[in-house]
């Protein structure tokens, strides 16, 4: 069977019940989706399937023939980062980075679906994604900024959560 990964037509040899996560990582060497729990609980393996965010660890590859699969590699390279990617860098929303590909994919789907910069709505959209480093605030800031601008990497704007004790 075939799937389209980040715009490239790829032939899949794995058996149809193989999780898409394993097909991407082990067969096709697309490494940004992470195996955090392989039980659908952490969100680190999330990819876009025909534009919708899906857990690749719970998706049998045989169930998505000819699908268009997008990972963060497909959203933008270091020189061509999307707004969401730039905002994550600008707000230090990626700390250890292991949850980041899934977060960015979910945030991208949320904003492309017309999501607002409201922190509660963003939280609900990202609710299935676990981050143990950031405490989530920087992630919410990044997604809100990606919606409204203010993530320009050439600026030196202070992060709103940088509080200095005097």
């Amino acid at each position, binding site marked *: 069977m075939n799937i389209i990964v980040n715009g490239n037509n790829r032939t899949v040899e794995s058996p149809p019940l193989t999780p898409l996560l394993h097909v991407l990582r082990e067969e096709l*060497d697309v*490494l*940004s989706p*992470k*195996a*955090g*729990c*392989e*039980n659908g*609980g*952490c969100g*680190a393996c999330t990819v876009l399937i025909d534009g919708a965010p899906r857990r690749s660890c719970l998706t049998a590859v045989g169930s998505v023939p000819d699908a268009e699969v997008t*990972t*963060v*590699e497909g*959203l*933008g*390279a*270091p020189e061509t*980062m999307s707004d969401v*990617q*730039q905002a*994550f*860098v*600008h707000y*230090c929303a*990626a*700390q*250890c*980075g*292991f*949850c*980041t*590909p899934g977060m*960015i994919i979910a945030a991208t789907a949320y904003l492309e679906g017309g999501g607002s910069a409201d922190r509660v709505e963003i939280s609900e959209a990202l609710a299935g994604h*676990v*981050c*143990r*480093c950031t405490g989530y605030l920087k992630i919410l800031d990044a997604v809100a900024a990606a919606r409204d601008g203010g993530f320009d*990497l050439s600026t*030196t*704007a*202070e*992060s709103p959560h*940088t509080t200095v*004790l005097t």
Partner: protein
Amino acid sequence: MKAVGARLPRYDGVGHATGRTVYVDDVRVNRMLHVKALRSPYHHAAIKRLDTSRAEQMPGVAAVVTHADVPLLVYGHLSALGIPADEPLLASEDVRYKGQPIAVVAAEDTDAAQAAVDAIDIEFEELPALFDMRKAFDDDAPQIHHWGPIYPHFEGEMNVRQIRKGNIDEAFEQADKIIQGVYRPAAIEQMPLETQVGLSVPEPDGRFTIYSCTQALYFSMGVVAAHLQQPLNKFKFVGGTVGGGFGGKVDTATETLCTLLAQKSGRPVKWRWTREEEFLCSSTRAPWHMEIIDAVSNDGWILGRKMLTLHDAGGYARFSPYGVTKHSFHHTGAYTIPNLHFDGYVVFTNRVPTSAMRGYGVTSVSFAVETHMSRIAEELGVDPFELRLKNANRIGDTSPNGITYTDPSTVDVLHALAGATDTELAAPYSDTTREMRHGEWLPEHLVGQLGDPEDH
């Protein structure tokens, strides 16, 4: 000084945001083998028979390693400091926690490795287990550890970490009130998103390149070299990209066994733990049992503190003595108490061994001390900010282990907290400073405890 005060981008931010960061599980080498472990299904058991001969013949199996294959079986994380070790890399005679590794298999894929693990012939004799450290001292408590119920190797071969400071009896004689509390925070799994993972690649010159998710690269290198009884220059460690650790990746989890399997098979060996293994078998933050008894005056001075701490080490010591030592140094929190009587014990149970997590040894006592401060304020009818500001560490005050504070931040933090919570502080608390004690800030019980910051 270009960096101080400047807003700098994270050096690894772009890699993270574009999926280019290479974690250990993303490293690709040819002919890589995969690992599964035989782990104890019991919390406590004797191993009566272990035979891997059938597993070794299973299809796809390249190497099986048991305790018999390890040149130095027992080595501890504190061994480099000359502290005796207690934990075997693989269990040989007994298992002391559920999930303890007994044998590991490297095979062409994880299914083949698991099938071989299932084919290992092993017989256990289940033993009674202990989970409540308060019962470790009972006469009928299960015998878990060859060192006895508590860790016996603090300095001077003592089984307790003690602090004695000032005159505790006098403090309790002078007290207006005695205020007690018991605090018992539970174990916490650090739960990094990246589970424990290692990859060991045998090189043609006999060396090993080891990709590690460790938080403590040279620690792990020393541990691997010691178990294999080879010099450090046989190992090249590649690390620095950690998918979350929070203390849970200080202990060496996979690197040694991957390298033994790589040595035996002559092939690269990767071991990535499942989420279930991470939860069940990786070290956690310890459960603690802390009893605080304070001698206090009616106007809110803490004259003396007696404290008993039990720290649950799980089945083996690992870093626990270090954790309790740090804990003891911090048992007055951010406050100055001149008369102290502290006893801290490392207790063995049949829990998974405990280790570091964010503020190792200190988070527990900070929780206990701050809760106790609020309890004192309530029982005395004193404002909680005023109680804290009164007893707050100041320049020249001395810590439980005799260090003179030169740069204490307690007063500044309390003032910032008051500001952040719109709390109006009354004079003189509104303008308390951290400067050396004098006048009303130097009551009778603190005279004589001050150190000279210049001597620090």
